[in-house]
């Protein structure tokens, strides 16, 4: 897929809580095609101490409205600076980057997101829905306040939730959710912290379920040039930015 450098315009910004915000961006021309699990590299301007772009996964794309949504967690100076953007501001992106999830072959689709790893699953669910699938979407967070935009996710599939403190949904980690014993899972697509991906991946391996995970390694270029973001795989080191972020769990050497 061709990659672009574009100046997008902030169409809308929603502060979800003191940790998360949603940027909706538009462009003067039709947005390029984007796929689930792909990401953008955002230029952070006017932030001393921030040198590199920030990789952010594509949360949603609305081609009719010609907008692209990014769900961003404030984790440091770069994302804090991005949270200050206002409607009408310009944001420079290199995009769309990375590969995508494979198209499911069976109906039992489970999307699993932990923390900010829920971000790419909205567009993933919408995309699969457009192909006639009805995914289940399992989202886990530390507490209820981390379970964001629940009604948005419900538009594209059955939403399942869990929290570590039990404040909403099933109490515990995502792998404690009863969906894993439902016998209805044919394929899992997961994004989130590495311990979660390992746990979900191990379940899939022992249950002989097809599982793909989207990784979030630290990266610099985002286009496969610098080789900083590599993940160890059975075929050697692979770049998360270009050969990933999606890998079959069977490939990964943790």
């Amino acid at each position: 897929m061709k990659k672009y450098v574009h100046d997008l315009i902030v169409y809308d910004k929603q502060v979800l809580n003191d940790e998360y915000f949603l940027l909706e961006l538009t462009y003067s021309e039709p947005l390029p095609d984007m796929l689930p699990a792909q990401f953008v590299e955002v230029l952070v301007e006017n932030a001393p101490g921030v040198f590199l772009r920030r990789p952010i996964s594509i949360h949603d794309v609305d081609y009719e409205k010609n907008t692209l949504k990014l769900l961003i967690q404030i984790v440091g100076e770069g994302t804090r600076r991005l949270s200050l953007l206002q409607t009408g501001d310009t944001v420079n992106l290199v995009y769309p980057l990375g590969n995508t999830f494979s198209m499911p072959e069976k109906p039992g689709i489970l999307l699993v997101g932990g923390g900010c790893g829920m971000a790419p699953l909205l567009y993933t669910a919408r995309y699969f829905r457009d192909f006639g699938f009805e995914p289940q979407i399992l989202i886990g967070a530390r507490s209820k306040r981390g379970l964001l935009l629940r009604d948005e996710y419900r538009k594209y599939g059955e939403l399942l939730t869990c929290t570590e403190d039990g404040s909403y949904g099933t109490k515990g980690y995502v792998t404690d959710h009863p969906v894993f014993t439902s016998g209805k899972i044919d394929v899992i697509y997961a994004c989130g912290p590495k311990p979660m991906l390992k746990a979900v991946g191990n379940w899939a391996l022992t249950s002989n379920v097809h599982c793909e995970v989207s990784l979030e390694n630290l990266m610099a270029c985002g286009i496969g040039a610098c080789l900083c973001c590599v993940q160890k795989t059975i075929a050697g080191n692979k770049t998360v930015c270009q050969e990933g972020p999606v890998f079959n769990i069977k490939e990964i050497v943790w």
Partner: protein
Amino acid sequence: MVNLKVDFNGLKLKNPVLTASGTFGYGEEFADFIDLNSLGGFIVKGTTLLPREGNNYPRMAETPSGMLNAVGLQNKGVNYFCEVIYPRIQHYSTAVIVNLSGSQISDYVQAAEMLNGLEHVPAIELNISCPNVKEGGMAFGTSCASAAAVVNEVRKVYKKHLMVKLSPNVTNIAEIARSVEAEGADSISLINTLLGMAIDVNTRRPKLSTITGGLSGPAVKPVAVRMVWQVFNAVNIPVCGLGGIMNAADAIEFMLAGATCVQVGTANFIDPMVSVKIVEGISEYCEKYGVKRVSELVGALQVN
């Protein structure tokens, strides 16, 4: 109309802007963003005789005005380059230069012999300055005797333009430059990354798997400009300057200090189109100051 062409000791470049090894992949990664043919040249990823997996993750840490890396020369080896990558990139009408690294002199020599046979690779950049491999690399570039030894042996088998990339992690850069010149280097590029380190204070662990790594970006630019100026004044072969170039003004600064051409490195990560913008910016600078040939800028620093 400004004449941007430079003659880099026989290597004819259409303009003085190249891209630095390790920051530009094999050029193809940037083909969506820029016309590679509008560059003076590009220097492909560090290549070694045998394939290398590189260092463990994490390999990168952002630092003030720059970054540390510890990639460790991950590459598929010179055979793979010659058979798979070269056929894909040989058609570019710009100087395609291979950065060559090794752990022992015989590795450099064997790989250089193979690269000598590639018709559309007019030069190699001999990397005796990588700080991220256990043996070899920087070990060759930090003493005059070992730098001279590797250049001497490679010179015997490599008949085209031999550029030698120096490490800034030395006490006297001019001495190293003179010793590689004496062994027949056609040109010198500098600087490679500065050895650096960063610690995560929350975990008390190093940010890189290798503990130390190579610092690049604008943070190193003043050191690089100083070293280019010192080397320019110490040798008669031309110098290619790099280290933290982010825009045309930075590139011109290196040229005034004595660089005949420059390499754009880490800036490619921030703006994949920056190299071409720098070519345009240099041209605009020349027009503004009535410079007819860009080569007039080389070493044009005025100290009085």
